[in-house]
């Protein structure tokens, strides 16, 4: 196999380090040896692909996909955006999974003990697959902030978790989306594991009034970037160009 098409090495200074003592759980869960750097092999340049037939019609509608007696409480929002690679090309056919707390900041999980109420009509999970232009969208309610045991008074900003599969296992990524203007972002020990403010801004969705549904739902735009592929300029086969 030629050099063509391997994925750009991750910029580890843009991502959080493994060891970030302000986020206490990372202390015992962070490898201490350096990672072994290797250029991609076929094992990383391939990856599972998920067909649209795997996705149900309500999978991207968190307002309706768990509802029992009515709609969940909370501010109705639409989250939309594109999945791109580092070359700014769309990534079609990407499985995007998302999960979140309810409007009160409570997760539907047996290990969650926060006193905010469970919403009987909100499950908190969804998924979709990007279209030919890398676009995705889903409907949900805006999650609440919530306290968590780290420092005695640490709170997570409102956020939605995202899991992404691109075309190669090398692109596998889990991250979180924050909301523009939330003052809790800058007080969070998990957000601050990211060293660069510009990188935090990259995880902060922007309110898009043009995409709101009048009298119905606000809209937030959140683009996600996965690793891009190298192309070799002086090869006949301009893969990816």
């Amino acid at each position, binding site marked *: 196999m030629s050099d063509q098409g391997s994925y750009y090495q991750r910029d580890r200074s843009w991502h959080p380090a493994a060891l970030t003592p302000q986020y206490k759980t990372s202390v*015992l869960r962070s490898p201490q040896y350096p*990672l072994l750097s290797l250029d991609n092999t076929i094992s990383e340049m391939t990856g599972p692909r998920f067909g649209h037939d795997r996705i149900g019609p309500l999978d991207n509608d968190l307002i309706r996909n768990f509802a029992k007696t009515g709609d969940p409480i909370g501010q109705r929002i639409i989250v939309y955006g594109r999945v791109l690679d580092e070359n700014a090309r769309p990534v079609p056919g990407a499985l995007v999974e998302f999960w979140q707390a309810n409007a009160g900041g409570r997760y539907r999980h047996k290990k969650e003990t926060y006193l905010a109420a469970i919403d009987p009509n909100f499950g908190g999970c969804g998924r979709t697959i990007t279209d030919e232009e890398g676009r995705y969208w889903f409907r949900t309610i805006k999650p609440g902030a919530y306290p968590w045991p780290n420092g005695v008074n640490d709170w997570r900003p409102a956020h939605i978790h995202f899991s992404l599969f691109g075309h190669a296992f090398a692109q596998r990524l889990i991250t979180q989306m924050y909301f523009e203007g939330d003052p809790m972002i800058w007080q969070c020990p998990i957000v601050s594991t990211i060293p660069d403010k510009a990188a935090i801004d990259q995880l902060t969705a922007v309110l898009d009034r043009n995409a709101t549904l009048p009298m119905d739902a606000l809209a937030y735009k959140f683009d996600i970037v996965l690793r891009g592929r190298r192309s070799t300029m002086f090869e006949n086969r301009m893969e990816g160009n």
Partner: protein
Amino acid sequence: MFQKLTTLKESPSQTAGPYVHIGATPNWVEITGVWKEDLGLVIVAPETKGERIIVKGRIFDGSGNPIRDALVEIWQADAAGLYNSPEETRGQADPTFAGWGRQPTDAVTGEYRFETIKPGRVPYRDGRPMAPHITFWIVARGINIGLHTRMHFGDEEPANAECPVLARIEHRFRVPTLIAQRSEENGMPTYTFDIHLQGEKETVFFDI
């Protein structure tokens, strides 16, 4: 001044958190009725070619305790060494074998468990065969960016000895951290692959 590159930065990772199961395996945490079956639970079909095996193990933190809230994904070739992926250019993989699996670690014991098949060999970048291996990707609360490693097979000594990836490990005493030993459980060949995040037995993790 100078021109600017038009490339984008990869979105930075954030921890999967303690409730990753809500998104990845909702039925497993009793969020039922949203979709019928969690993705990645079943990898093999009755007609899949290859030797049936169990791959199991635990993930230990720096205090030696197993992590009970992790999510483990595997990605592997079929019995002929081909990946079930549109990016596979060398041939058509066994269509009955997904090659990708996803399991939570058990909430009490911390054990993960996959029913899969033993993969064939896959070539390295220069064409030399790599030893049979399964790619692992691990996320959990406290892990800021997914950890990538490979499981090798203890009964593949000659292949492991000539594997160009294992050869890249400078500190040779660490090579065994990637090799799962074979045993038999209820008549099934079983490979135990324990992962250590820290300590003397810290698993080799890759930036790949």
